[in-house]
């Protein structure tokens, strides 16, 4: 089955939704009705009662017509029977949000085994168990439980191009909420839970072909590391991963020094580099970094030019860039001469210091001179916004970045509410600190290098594939 049924079902049964107070499954019916989801939504409960306007049935099998997806939120011991009924009904996919399976000891594992049997027998796919479900901003399909209509409404009322695979409901809520005031928005988000069937690799593969531009991962463990690496090598979209959970599983029984040195986290870190996955350093980078990819070209080299209205920020940015392995671009005498002609600059060397410039054209000229210079691969502009003309100049900078195919990681050194307002109101992809802007350049360049490696790798694989039949003929 194509994973599409999880994101765009023509009909969905919410198993466990009832009118009992505080019933969690009922919140799924509620949000789907509130968002006017285009597909048919049914409630399945003992009394066969209607829930939030969704017709009720006592069993999935009683529902007239096709049921493409079943969302199951009932006590664990009832789940295997319901999954069997779903199979008999011809349901294509099940999302099991209930907990109490492999994570809960041998009894839970036995129930998981029974479910696995039904999935195989009836050729169904499963998301979860122990998960929050799926959100698709493009068609307003949302089966996250516990969402109160209106409260998170803005977070996914505007569909975007960033998709998330998240192994935690709490992190999912944080990331979605953070997009309220950002320039890029969410396409899809999946909470994957125990990954007993569909895992992070299946979803990365799916997001490679659904209009997603950036893939974000929050992982606590990896189900199949080699599968993840194989998938990541094929996918050319940026994959940003934040992972927690250092385990000593690998080193517990170690006899060699090598095993004593390895832990799962170090191995994961190096595997990311090998397979072209960008490892994030903090949870906030999950929502802060995607805009660098959706709004800016990739950083193709390591020479960065900094410009600011204050020598202090020039110095701060220079330190951060050097610490991150970049070079401060050495501006040629010709470039410096051009800069000098723009007006009264305090410093025409990198970091370029404009001083308290008032003229929009001066900003624009400087951006143009720096971006067009061969010795500059990317920009870290730190323009203080005290006049609206600066915002106009930054908007022109964004067009220039596309024109010259070089990125700018913009940091506006104003108070945070000002930054957020500028970002939201004008769609300027400004970062919230010089550290964040520097990291944006790092991940952009990392993706550029990964792409080069992936292209060579895929090219070599093609050559090998082509070479094989000939070799067989020669034998």
């Amino acid at each position: 089955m194509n994973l599409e049924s999880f994101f765009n079902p023509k009909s969905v049964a919410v198993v466990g939704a009832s009118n009992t107070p505080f019933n969690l499954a009922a919140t799924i019916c509620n949000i789907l009705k509130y968002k006017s989801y285009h597909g048919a939504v049914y409630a399945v409960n003992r009394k066969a009662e209607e829930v939030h306007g969704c017709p009720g049935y006592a069993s999935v099998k009683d529902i007239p017509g096709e049921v493409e997806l079943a969302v199951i939120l009932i006590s664990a011991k009832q789940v295997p029977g319901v999954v069997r009924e779903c199979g008999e009904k011809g349901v294509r996919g099940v999302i099991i949000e209930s907990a109490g399976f492999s994570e809960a000891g041998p009894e839970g594992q036995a129930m998981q085994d029974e479910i696995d049997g039904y999935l195989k027998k009836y050729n169904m796919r499963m998301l979860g168990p122990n998960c929050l479900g799926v959100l698709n901003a493009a068609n307003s399909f949302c089966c996250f439980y516990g969402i109160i209509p209106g409260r998170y409404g803005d977070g996914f009322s505007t569909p975007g191009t960033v998709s998330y695979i998240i192994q935690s409901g709490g992190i999912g809520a944080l990331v979605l909420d953070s997009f309220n005031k950002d320039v890029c928005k969410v396409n899809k988000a999946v909470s994957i839970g125990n990954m007993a069937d569909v895992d992070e690799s299946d979803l990365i593969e799916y997001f490679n072909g659904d209009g997603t531009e950036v893939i974000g991962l929050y992982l606590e463990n990896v189900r199949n590391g080699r599968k993840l690496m194989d998938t990541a090598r094929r996918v050319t979209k940026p994959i940003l991963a934040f992972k927690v959970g250092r385990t000593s599983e690998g080193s517990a029984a170690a006899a060699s020094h090598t095993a004593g040195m390895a832990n799962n986290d170090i191995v994961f870190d190096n595997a990311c580099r090998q397979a072209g996955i960008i490892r994030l350093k903090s949870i906030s980078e999950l929502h802060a970094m995607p805009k660098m990819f959706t709004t800016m070209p990739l950083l193709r080299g390591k020479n960065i030019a900094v410009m600011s209205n204050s020598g202090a920020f020039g110095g701060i940015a220079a330190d951060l860039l050097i610490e991150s392995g970049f070079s401060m671009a050495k501006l040629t005498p010709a470039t410096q001469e051009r800069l000098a002609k723009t007006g009264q600059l305090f410093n025409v060397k990198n970091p370029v210091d404009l001083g308290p410039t008032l003229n929009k054209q001066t900003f624009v000229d400087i951006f143009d001179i720096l971006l067009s210079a061969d010795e500059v691969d990317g920009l870290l502009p730190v323009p203080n916004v005290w006049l609206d003309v600066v915002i106009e100049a930054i908007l022109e900078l964004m067009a220039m970045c596309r024109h010259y195919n070089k990125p700018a990681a913009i940091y506006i050194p104003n108070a945070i509410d000002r930054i957020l307002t500028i970002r939201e109101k004008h769609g300027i992809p400004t970062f919230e600190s010089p550290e964040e802007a520097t990291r944006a350049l790092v991940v952009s360049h990392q993706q550029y290098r990964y792409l080069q490696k992936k292209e060579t790798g895929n090219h070599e694989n093609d050559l090998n594939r082509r070479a094989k039949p000939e070799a067989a003929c020669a034998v």
Partner: protein
Amino acid sequence: MKTILTDARSRKQRALSEYDSKRVIAAAGVPMPREELVASKDDALRAAAAIGYPVVLKGCADTLLHKTEKNMVFLNLASPDDVGDAYDRITGAGEPLDGVLVQEQVRGGRELVIGMVRDPQFGPCVMFGLGGVFTEVLRDTTFRVAPLSREDAAEMLDEVKARALLGEFRGQPAVDREALIDALVGIGALALENDEIAEIDINPIIVAGDRPVAVDAVVVLRRE
């Protein structure tokens, strides 16, 4: 090579002896010192003369995982008398031995490590880093999941903090990078092809001139 592994497994060995470990990893492309496993003092003296003084003598057995702590390693033996004396002390210690290993004394100021470990999720991973007695103290190592491309291996050499040691260093030439890359790629392939190998330690790899030489190694076997 496969025979060494299957024989050791059938004898329920936890690891291969140093001599057998080296035969297995040499087949994977790791450069070795000149050495010979002997079972008599006469053979030890003959081997030492053939290899050229000074030499190293080590007790060799699969059960001997901490040779230095058990006084089973004698370095810088410059004469037949020294070799005879060391041979007596190794064989007189009461440890079960496969034989005594006579090895060329490899000289060089730079010590590296290559290793292999199996991760529960990612499978065999190859390690490279700063070797010698400080490996675990400084933890200057990096890993790659097998199989390794030559590019992966080259990146590993550039990733460790001690990478400056691989260039020209205190009058010594730069290390033969291709030899290290061959070894890293080879160990990855060895691990993928042989499930019975659980872990590998090649430590130290001493850089003699520009040539990395695996002076000590252990191949740990998978337990049932």
